[in-house]
């Protein structure tokens, strides 16, 4: 609501600034706009920026700080014995007050002090939002008047507008850095807290995984076990199955499409294959759980094998299908980058097409293909939905593809779905897993990107 008003005000500021610039320049009897430093629209933009930006910054700050300030104010009004409670209890009281204020059901009995606090809370909130509106509007109007006053023929409106735009561009390009930083810091921070409870060596080399920690110390299985070897074994098993499916099919179809197929076949088959890349992973998960897993199980039973209903084979196969277009389009790029002269040279020596492919194109394209496969592996390791829906939950250290295994991503999801407190080792374990996952994929990606880039430069 307030945002819309600000937008309208900024538009008004633009018009005012533009008109003002024309009027100022016409004062001296010259043609409108002639003596201005910048085009009239820049004066308009300048005024609009003055209107919008300070108000927006204030709005953001206000919204961010409001809950903290209000909570502190409400707390300072509470009776002393409540204020001196330990922090965890205090947080409970605060959330009770908030619930009471928004009319929800509260956990504890409602006493008059709480009721009063809730009323106080509501009152403060109303005051705050009213004050916010007034202050923001005042700031916007003040911005208009400053912008209006600054308009003069000598004022370099274009330069200052362009400076602002430049700041925006630099800021937006640093979002990518901030994101990486955010990922690393958030995951690292929680993981360090986890490693204070569970030693790193146990985490990396332990053979037993059962993250269920009991609430009371004397319960059975009160200490969870956080050995991740079975998880990584499961992840590797499923990824390996996926690669066994995806690499031959993807590579061969890329070779066929780029070396054998005529233009019409290529124009039809390539987009059809790429449909596989556009299908959401949750759909693959459903397909794996509902169609492929029973198929695999029935096929196994018919030849006398005992197949788990959540076998690694089914999940891995479907993941392989998902990765086919990934492998094939990456290899396609690399194969097309091999210079035609090399093919022609090979044909001139009398080799057949398949010999050219095997002895000339593949060796030449090998680094690129390996890079592509590494990217595909990193994707398979990080893939979540297929394994969440089609692979098992129990950690199981096995190399048998017919048994159910679990993966790193499955465990992250199961540990973190639902409401949990942030300080239990169970939730923190998910972040530690995330850290390892991030590092593994990061290393794979860096190697792959480096290999692919090096290779491209070679033939350019």
């Amino acid at each position, binding site marked *: 609501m307030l945002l819309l008003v600000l937008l309208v005000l900024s538009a008004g500021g633009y018009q005012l600034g533009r008109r003002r610039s024309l009027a100022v320049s016409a004062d001296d009897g010259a043609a409108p706009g002639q003596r201005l430093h910048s085009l009239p629209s820049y004066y308009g933009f300048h005024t609009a920026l003055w209107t919008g930006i300070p108000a927006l910054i204030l709005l953001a700050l206000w919204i961010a700080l409001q809950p903290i300030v209000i909570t502190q104010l409400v707390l300072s009004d509470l009776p002393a014995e409540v204020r001196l409670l330990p922090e965890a209890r205090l947080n409970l009281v605060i959330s009770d007050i908030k619930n009471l204020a928004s009319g929800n059901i509260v956990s504890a009995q409602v006493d008059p002090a709480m009721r009063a606090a809730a009323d106080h809370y509501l009152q403060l909130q109303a005051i705050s939002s009213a004050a916010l509106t007034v202050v923001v509007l005042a700031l916007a109007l003040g911005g208009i008047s400053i912008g209006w006053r600054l308009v003069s023929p000598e004022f370099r409106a274009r330069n200052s507008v362009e400076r602002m735009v430049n700041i925006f561009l630099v800021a937006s*390009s640093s979002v*990518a850095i901030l994101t990486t930083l955010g990922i690393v810091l958030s995951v690292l921070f929680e993981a360090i807290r986890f490693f204070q409870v569970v030693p790193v060596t146990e985490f990396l080399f332990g053979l037993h995984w059962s993250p269920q920690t009991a609430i009371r110390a004397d319960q059975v299985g009160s200490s969870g076990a956080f050995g991740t070897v079975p998880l990584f074994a499961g992840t590797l098993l499923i990824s390996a199955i996926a690669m066994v499916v995806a690499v031959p*099919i993807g590579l061969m179809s890329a070779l*066929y499409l780029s070396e054998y197929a005529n233009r019409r076949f290529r124009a039809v088959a390539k987009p059809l294959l790429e449909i596989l890349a556009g299908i959401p992973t949750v759909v693959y998960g*459903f397909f794996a759980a509902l169609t492929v897993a029973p198929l695999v199980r029935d096929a196994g039973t018919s030849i006398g094998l005992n197949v788990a209903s959540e076998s690694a084979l089914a999940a891995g196969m479907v993941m392989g299908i998902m990765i086919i277009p990934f492998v094939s389009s990456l290899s396609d790029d690399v194969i097309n980058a091999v210079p035609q002269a090399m093919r022609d040279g090979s044909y001139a020596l009398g080799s057949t097409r398949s010999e050219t492919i095997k002895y000339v194109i593949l060796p030449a394209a090998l680094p690129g293909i390996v890079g592509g496969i590494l990217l595909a592996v990193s994707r398979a390791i990080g893939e979540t939905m297929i394994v969440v829906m089609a692979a098992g939950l129990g950690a199981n250290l096995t190399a048998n593809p017919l048994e159910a295994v679990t993966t790193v991503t499955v465990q992250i999801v199961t540990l973190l779905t639902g409401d949990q407190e942030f300080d239990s080792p169970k939730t923190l374990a998910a972040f530690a897993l995330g850290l390892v996952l991030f590092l593994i994929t990061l290393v794979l990606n860096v190697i792959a990107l480096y290999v692919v880039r090096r290779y491209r430069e070679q033939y350019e």
Partner: protein
Amino acid sequence: MSNFSDPASPAAATARSKRATDLMRQGLAARHRAERRFRRYGLIAIVLGLTFVLFLLTSISATGLPAFQQTYVELDIYFDPEEIDPEGTRLPKTLSRANYAALVRSTLRHYFPEVSERRALRELYKMVSSGAGFELRKKVMQNPELIGTTETIWVPTSDDVDMLVKGHIDRHLPESERRVSDQQIAWIDQLMARGKLEKRFNTLFFVNGDSRQPELAGIWGAVMGSVYTLLVTLSLAFPLGVGTAIYLEEFAPKNRWTDLVEVNINNLAAVPSIVFGLLGLAVFINFFGLPRSVPLVGGLVLTLMTLPTIIIASRAALKSVPPSIREAALGMGASKMQMVAHHVLPLAMPGMLTGAIIGMAQALGETAPLLMIGMVAFIVDVPGGPLDPGTVLPVQIYLWADSPERAFVEKTAAAIMVLLGFLIMMNALAVYLRKRFERRW
């Protein structure tokens, strides 16, 4: 090489070369066989890939198509004033509290007057969806005039009846192994014979939110959640992505910092999506204290996830604008910013839009990071804004796929069909934009 350097015996040389040709001939057949074999492998790979596509799509549509129809039963409801509003006040409060299920029950008793035993009656009542009562209430609340009249209304049956009518429950199984009793089957057949039970288009599926009752569960809540999430994502990711691309392509000096940004973007594009979910949980929810399960947070997480896609596509679009355009603009006295804003950007816009649409399609299908930030909650209400708790289509699919009821299987497949429909539309739009505005310089 020695045989060629021996000019003294041309006959021997010819013989030897003849032998070599023979050898080559023999080898040639084998080489051609290998060639054909190799070619066949390639074709098999493509055919396999295409079979997977076909198999996936047919298996999903075969499962999902029946869900667009739903079994309804025709009830002649007498809106009994005694039951709804005995005092005749017509106050909304009284009307909304009345026991509408009783009206449905009395009609059912009326249909089968011979049923009187308690257990049998309960079985009979169970055949009609519990949503029937809500529908009657809605009708009466809208139009209190109905009270005292009789109206014929089609209401959904329970999911078990629906499954039986669609043939997903085998009638020939022993009674203890199926969820519908013999008695209920007999009633269903009677109703069918009287024309009071039929399959109709399932509008509830498109207008309802989620529900524990499969026959009442719909995708509208998830669709609206997806819309709000994508709105947040688009409004943040597009300006940021285009801004980054412009900066890197047009303004950035070639130094360590820009190198770092570039490496970063390429890496982010390959980071597993679930890690973005961890980031969202730790930063947006835990650190900034934003609420769980809201489309706003989902949109923020997806923004970070789709940014690399949009940046890479936008940079490609900017690169395809020829430098002569830039030089001409600069030569006419435009500032660098004017050159970009007035000349380069409009020419690159179609490519950027295409990239944005593809990024949005990717965001629409994403599930894993949203599980982390609590969008898996069971939410019945349709969200009314980006700050209302909600879920999105792919997460809804995940939730339904986890439900044990048989009827949810076909609902899941139907929801997948809707999701794929949206994705196909978005991709078609992207292809159209590319075809329509593509320029070769």
